[in-house]
Structure formats: C-alpha cells, structure tokens
C-alpha cells in the first residue's frame, strides 16, 4: 500500500485540529487575552513562507511584494510575542504593591 500524499496532508490537518482544541480546553478566562495574543503570534510563522517565496523569485515586482509580506509577517510574529510577554509579565510579578513611577514601557521591573 502506498500513501496518498493528499491523505497524509488531510491526516495532519485533522489531527492538528483536535490537538489545537485539546491543549487550550482548560484555559481560565483570566488568560483569554494573553492566549489569543500568543496564538496570534504563532501564526506569524507565515514569515517562514514569505522568506521562502521571496528568496526563490527572479521577478522584480514579485520581489517587492515578497519583501512587503516579510515586513508584515515579522511585525505579526515579533510584535505578537513581545506584547504577549508584556501582558504575562504583569501576571507573574511576585513583588508586593510598592509605590513607584508608572512604567509604561513595560521594561523589566
């Protein structure tokens, strides 16, 4: 029996659907926002696809479009992970409440 590649792809897709639902099924509502933001950053992996198509084209217009896609995808990926970390940093702060200047840049406390 040989494997039909189409079916292999379908198998990976369907199993990923179940895994995707299963891993977050017990999330508390407190973490909905960071989770959404983290998942948002993960689909920034389209950057990989953008690099692959841009790096293999010989057409000038395609190159320009590809570079735009790379910029957009990097904003999604990098910005997504950084903003999620900023949110989570506030949850994990162990120190008791102390009066200090508002750190709006979210740098390390």
């Amino acid at each position: 029996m040989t494997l039909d590649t189409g079916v292999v792809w379908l198998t990976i897709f369907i199993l990923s659907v179940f895994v995707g639902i299963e891993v977050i099924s017990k999330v508390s509502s407190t973490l909905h926002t960071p989770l959404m933001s983290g998942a948002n950053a993960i689909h920034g992996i389209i950057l990989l696809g953008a690099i692959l198509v841009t790096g293999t084209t010989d057409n000038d217009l395609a190159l320009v479009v590809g570079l735009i896609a790379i910029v957009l995808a990097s904003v999604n990926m990098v910005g997504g992970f950084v903003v999620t970390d900023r949110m989570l940093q506030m949850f994990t702060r162990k120190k008791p409440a102390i009066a200090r200047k508002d750190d709006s840049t979210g740098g390390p406390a």
Partner: protein
Amino acid sequence: MPTWIQLVFLACGVCFILALKGLSGPKTARNGNLLGAAAAVVACAMPFFWTDLHLQHVPLILAAIAVGTVGGVYGARTVQMTQMPQMVALFNGVGGGAAALVALLELHDIVETGGDAPWFTLAATAFTIAVGSISFAGSIVTFAKLQELMTSRPVVFAGLPVIFGGSLVAALVLAVLLVNDPGMWVGILLGLVGLLIGLLLVLPVGGADVPIVISLLNAFTGLTVAAGGYVLSNVLLLVAGTLVGASGTFLTLLMARAMGRSVANILFGALKGGSTLGAGEASDRPVRSVNPEDAAIMLAYADRVIIVPGYGLAVAQAQHSLRELVDVLDARGAQVDYAIHPVAGRMPGHMNVLLAEAQVPYEQLREMDQINGDFKDADVVLVVGANDVVNPAAKSTPGAPIYGMPILNADEARQIIFMKRSMRPGFAGIENELLFDEKTSLLFGDAKDSMGKLLNAVKAL
C-alpha cells in the same frame, strides 16, 4: 528539503503545541510564550541554512525582517495596556495580509510555469488569498473601532446585506475561475473582493462585540496560514496554522459564552435588520447623585466593600488612586475586594492585566464565581467605570442584547455607588436599571478626578 530541516520543523511544531498548552495555565504562560517565540525564530532561520534552496536576495530579506522587527517591538512595547486589544487586532491583520501576499506570489509561480497545479492546490491558494484579505481588512476596521478612529457603534446602511451576499458570491465565482484557469488578475480581484468582505463583515458589529470578532479573525488568519502551508508544501505552516485556527475558533466560542452571546448573532445580528444594540439615548428619569464627601462617609464606615472596576477606570487612569483608596479603607479595618467580571475591560481577562499594571495585589482580585455570593453581605459596592457587567437586565429582560450574560450581583448589596461620567449607557448601548434603584447613589465626574476627591475625603474623616 533536507531531512534534518524537516526534523527541525517537526520539533518546532511540537514546541508550538507546548506553547499553547503553557499559555493556558497561569504559572506556565510566560514560559509557553517564550518557547513559542524561540521555535518561531529557529523555524524562520532554516531557509538560510538550506543550501539546495539557493536562497537569493538575502540582504534584502534580512533588511525587511529588521524593519518588521523594529516596527513590531516598538508597537508592542509602547502600546498602553488599555489599547492592547487593538494592537492584537493590528498584528493579526498584518499577518493575514502577509499570508494573502504569499499566496499571490505562489500563484504567480504557478502561472509562470504554465498553470499546471493540482486543483486542490489552486483551491487552497484561492482560500488563502480570500481569507487572508478578509482578515486584513476586518482587523483594520476593528482597530479603527477600538482606537475610536471611527464610531464603535454598528455601521449599517440600506443594501448592506445585498452587497455582502453579492461579494460572497463573487468571491466563490472568482475562486472557481482561479481553479479552472489560474491567472494573476483573477487572484488580485479575489484579494480585492476579500478586502470588501472583511470590511462589510466587521462594520455592522457593535463595539462590545469587537473582542470576539478579533478572536474570530485570529482563527481565520490561522486557517489562512494552514492553507498557505499546503500551497507551499510546508508541514510546519500547516500544523501551526491549524493549531491557531482550531484553538482560536474554540476560544471564540468560549468568549462568546462568557458574554452570553452567540457568534452568529454577533456577526449577522445587525445584518438581519434590528441592530444588536438598544436605543442608546440617555434617559431623563430621576437619579440620586451624591458629592464625594457623602460617598466618602458611606465608604469609610462600611465593614465590607466590593469594588467593581470597568474599562472607564483604566481609560481615566484612575486605577492608581483607586488602589490608594482601597489601602486607606483597608487600614480603617474594612474588608475590600475587587470583583472582576470575565469580560471586564475590552477583552476577557483585560481587567486583570490593567489592575496588575497598577500593582493591585493579586489576592484582592476575585473572579465572578468566587465573589457573587458575597454581594448580599456587602455594605457598599463601588462601581467605577463599569456598567453592563452589573446591569440586571441581563437576568430580567429577555429582549435585552446582553440577556443571558452572567453578571456581578451588585444589586444585592445594601448600597451602591456608581462613579460615572454621565448617564450615557455602557458599551452595549442599553440603559441600566440599577442606576435608578433607590439603593444607588451616583457620583458624577471624570473617574480620576472623582477618585482623587473621594480619596481626600476619606482621608479627612
């Protein structure tokens, strides 16, 4: 593709699963996010080590990555925590846009090489172009709504359902055309129609429902990336995109349930005519207003106080004065807690982030289920910048847009103080009966200003 790179991609896929798993628990969330980031960086570095690929334009690619990285980090680090929902929407939108562009480039390759591709690959390409564009345009509109660059109320005009239906049909026809006879113009037209659909999909959604739409568009982008992975024959994109698509859809349903809304109702309620929002004009029924001094006396002699914070608190940047007020009341011997509704703020969990920023001790933040039984013993409930989450219409008025949403039982307390700017209704646009209750006193004014006066008045007692 060399086997070792395929194995690296497999490892990255596993890391994404573990990252999502980590993000759903409070203790593991931060490490989960970092793991996901590390996997993404490793995966994106692979093309540069893949010698058979003969990657061209490397300096330009690296420059583009640098530009995007600087932009992303700048945006992520400078955004105010109150504006974070729209930032997530924006990041999501550009991701969808990137996926649509990648699919267009792949289509260009297919057309150049004679248009020979399996129909399913072409269908996946069409899907990526269309849904990526929907996600891009939809997210930009949600950004504009939350940033208040445009009205947050539903935008509905005559003929909207017809235009919306027409553009869906047009997208389908174009997709079929693309599969039968791949051509660049068909692809570009499909992208433009996708932008139109995204615009029309989000315009009629009311402000309070926008967070759910962000989550839904996030799932859309995930599926777009998955389809793009199929087009590019890249398993990692397929796995990562599907994970986000599936978990994003599930999360959307969870959020909708927390707000007592159905997703179909949110998206199409306004289209069906009869806006999802109520009338929204301020009423002129009599209310009882108090000055800060009287409110201070009520608070200062209470044994049990519950604070209900809302988005208005964060917008006015009054959370620091509020924390000081709570400290003073605490020192006077009162038991004070914050009651956090699951959708307080603009997104589920948003209020926890905002109060954590003001360094409110985590132990004082009580979730709805933990505190709802305590309201009947509370001497005073102080509602700051919140409205819909304490609106008894959710329990008593079957026709109300928020009917069925679990609320905080503030109406059971002995006295209620509302800090409000005006009698304007909350984000859901409906009147709050609790404002007219005889136990309720209203303290009008900007939350920061009133909070400062209240704090001074309590200190003076």
